[in-house]
């Protein structure tokens, strides 16, 4: 890790709450780290675990998944479904050694521009401190880099 390491963070967010919250942070001219790339989805219920794995394969050092607070889902229940899936998938990732610190989940409402900005800053700092997560990407090359290949 060099001191210039800037983590790449991919965020999967619902359009009604977190994306809107991020917009609010913008209209309020709050400043936050530029490391996050947002992928806009209709609802957290749309977010499949494969998205997270693909982001890691693409070189994300951290992933954020965020949507509406419980009870506030535009689609009434999408975030409740999402929460269960994340609970399960998160434990699976942790069990396979993908550090929990790199996969963040949050509820950010359309009103929480400030929370969004703060969260992005804090997770960027945290993941920057953790350093790059190349181990996952490099799994692709395990076989051909073995001495026996």
């Amino acid at each position, binding site marked *: 890790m060099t001191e210039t390491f800037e983590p790449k963070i991919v965020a999967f967010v619902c359009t009604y709450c977190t994306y809107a919250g991020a917009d609010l942070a913008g209209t309020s001219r709050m400043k936050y780290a530029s490391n996050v790339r947002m992928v806009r989805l209709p609802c957290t219920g749309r977010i499949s675990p494969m998205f997270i794995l693909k982001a890691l394969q*693409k070189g994300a050092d951290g992933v954020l998944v965020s949507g509406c607070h419980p009870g506030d889902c535009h689609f009434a229940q999408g975030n409740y479904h999402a929460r269960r899936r994340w609970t399960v998938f998160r434990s699976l990732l942790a069990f396979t050694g993908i550090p929990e610190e790199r996969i963040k989940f949050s509820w950010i409402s359309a009103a929480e521009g400030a929370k969004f900005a703060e969260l992005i800053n804090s997770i960027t700092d945290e993941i920057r401190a953790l350093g790059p997560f190349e181990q996952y990407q490099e799994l*692709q090359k395990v*076989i*051909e880099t073995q*001495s*026996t*290949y």
Partner: protein
Amino acid sequence: MTRILLHSRVDDCLSAWRSAGFRVLAPSKRNDLTRFDEVHAASDMALDLVLPERTIKDHFFPQTEPLLNYRIKKQAIESDEMLPPQQKRIFFGVRPCDASGLEIDDALFGWDYKDRYWFSRRENSVIITIACTRADDFCMCTSVQLSPDSTKGSDVMLHPLKDGRGWRVVTLTDRGKELAETIASMLQEDASETAPAASVPVKFDLDKVTSWLADPSNFESHLWKEVSQRCIGCGSCTFLCPTCHCFDIQDEGDTYSGIRRKNWDSCSFAMFTMHTSGHNPRNTQSTRWRQRIMHKFNYYQGKFGVNSCSGCGRCTRQCPVDMGITETLQEITNLPR
């Protein structure tokens, strides 16, 4: 003149070979799996196995292998082939069945045009085989006209000595002779008796089997369904087979670049022959099992003059539902004439 290699000199051989630029692979056990792996000392080796679970095919035709890499540009593409590293290798402690498998597959990879990925590895490898003095319930080399000490595919053959001190060394090819020279000082003249080869019962009548398979009227025999009824359609028998060689080609990458890979594929998989139209010539597990048997004991024979089975028995040994080639060929053998 017979020369022997003592177990105690193996470490010396390994250093000699390493200094000659070879990488030595031998059966070893790592992470609950026995397979050929790089070894640095005799103690790394697991030579007491009847057979390692994985075959040496893995090191000539890897489960996934980059063919080329590509880069996508605006209205342009670039690609470079990715050939295997030119690394000299010694496979030490190969079993005769696995060594035979390589020679069987040479025919396929060599017809019409020589597959550079296979042959660059073949040409850089020396196969040191140890004749089998033990067999298990699944071994069936003798049923396919091979034997526990068959030399097919080997460059050097080691016959275990009766007293267990080492092996008698028999060089079989020029490459084998050259290699033996590199360790000449570690070998010694010795006329000690070698241990008898393992006794492997013949399990089916290969002649009867091949002639039955060659009869087109048996193609639609009810036997195919009966013997394959419990087959679950996984690919473990094909992937652990020393001669199965089917593969798929897949591109993997992102928007900007990627790698085109050659991946193992299996005739057991329903998707193997599926056309994009949805039509699937082999649409049931029994037709896929028939293809596997026919390919090994009829088609391959017809095309390359050799059966595509070296009798290792792994297909049955590891089958999740206790199926395998042996059972099917036994059934055929047991059919009334």
